[in-house]
């Protein structure tokens, strides 16, 4: 998923499904404590509501 916006105080990020439009696409609230710090535009691997890894760009 791709990060759209952050709520750093609560450790949450608003994310959109990968490859999706953005603000009108589907979005979910995700816990980012395990991969922080994240920034809008980052791509994350999310499982059961928690981000487990940041995706590195393909070489």
């Amino acid at each position, binding site marked *: *998923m791709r990060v759209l916006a952050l709520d750093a105080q609560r450790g949450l990020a608003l994310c*959109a*499904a*990968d*490859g*999706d*439009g953005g603000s*009108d*696409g*589907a*979005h*979910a*609230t*995700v816990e980012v404590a395990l991969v922080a710090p994240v920034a809008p535009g980052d791509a994350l691997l999310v499982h059961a*509501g928690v981000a487990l890894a940041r995706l590195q760009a393909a070489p």
Partner: protein
Amino acid sequence: MSATGREERILDIIETARAKRPRFRDERVTMAHGAGGKATQGMIEGLFVPAFGSPALAALGDAGLLAVDGAELAFTTDAFVVTPLRFPGGSIGELAVNGTVNDLAVAGARPLALSLSLILEEGLPSDALRAEVDAIARAAKAAGVELVAGDTKVVERGHADGMYVTTAGIGRRDPRSALSPGALRPGDRILLSGTIGEHGTAIMLARGEFELGAEIASDTRSLWPAADALLEAAGPALRCMRDATRGGVASVLNELARASGVGLLAREAAVPVQPAVAGACELLGIDPLYVANEGVLVAFVAPQAADAALAALRSVAGCEQAAAIGEVRAEPPGMVLVETSFGGRRVMDQLVGDPLPRIC
């Protein structure tokens, strides 16, 4: 027996089991029975059809067809138990009108009149009731049907979740229609009238149970204009139509494959889905092909008329994304295969459980 031999034998056993008339042996009714998949089918074919015994019912169409003194009529009913009552793109009242209108339309019948039954929960705010009454009146006008009869009941607080709505509808079979599942032939093309998966996804998001949001609205609409366009463009080359509601397009394809004994091949890459819907379904691990719609029809058209039929569909408002998604084949009979966007093939089986309860 060789490994391949044994595998073939098991696949045969599965096919025989799949082709058999299901029996209804469950001890209790569960939510799975309302999902539009295997459990629902088991209940319909194993309990209702044998008990009620009418040939019109046994045909398992979206509407029952009756001939009365030379007039060919279609008659159907549908109940709506959706929660919440209002959601992006519509409300229970609108669903109730369009749902029944669409069952008539895909049976090739021009919708004429509806009856309306309301079961209201004690304590329902009158404003909510007024809002639905207005929605029903507007939807009926837009669909060109008259509301000619009705009934209202009230039940104690705690029942009916606000309200339950049932509509029954009557229509007149259009002279251009020659529809029947038995008419499907290998080579016939499968057409979809538009993008899929919107209604079920919209409802689920509207329930706010999951940390998930998106701008997705229910696709509820009358399908008579689409059906009309198809009948005009294809006439007798239009073999069959179905309304893809609970259980989604996958369930419709499976029902038809079973009913007609042909095989169906669908191409995943050709199925139109809005990006927001694809995204939401991906996040939840649900396949849009199994998600309910309230404004999508599936049509089967003989190959020589397929291009004209698709063009006619695309010219109907709301159906601009109509697409040809596959075709009918002789083999394997009664089964639906999918060509994945990756180039492999798999079987598209019927739903077993219910990913999204109470969506219509």
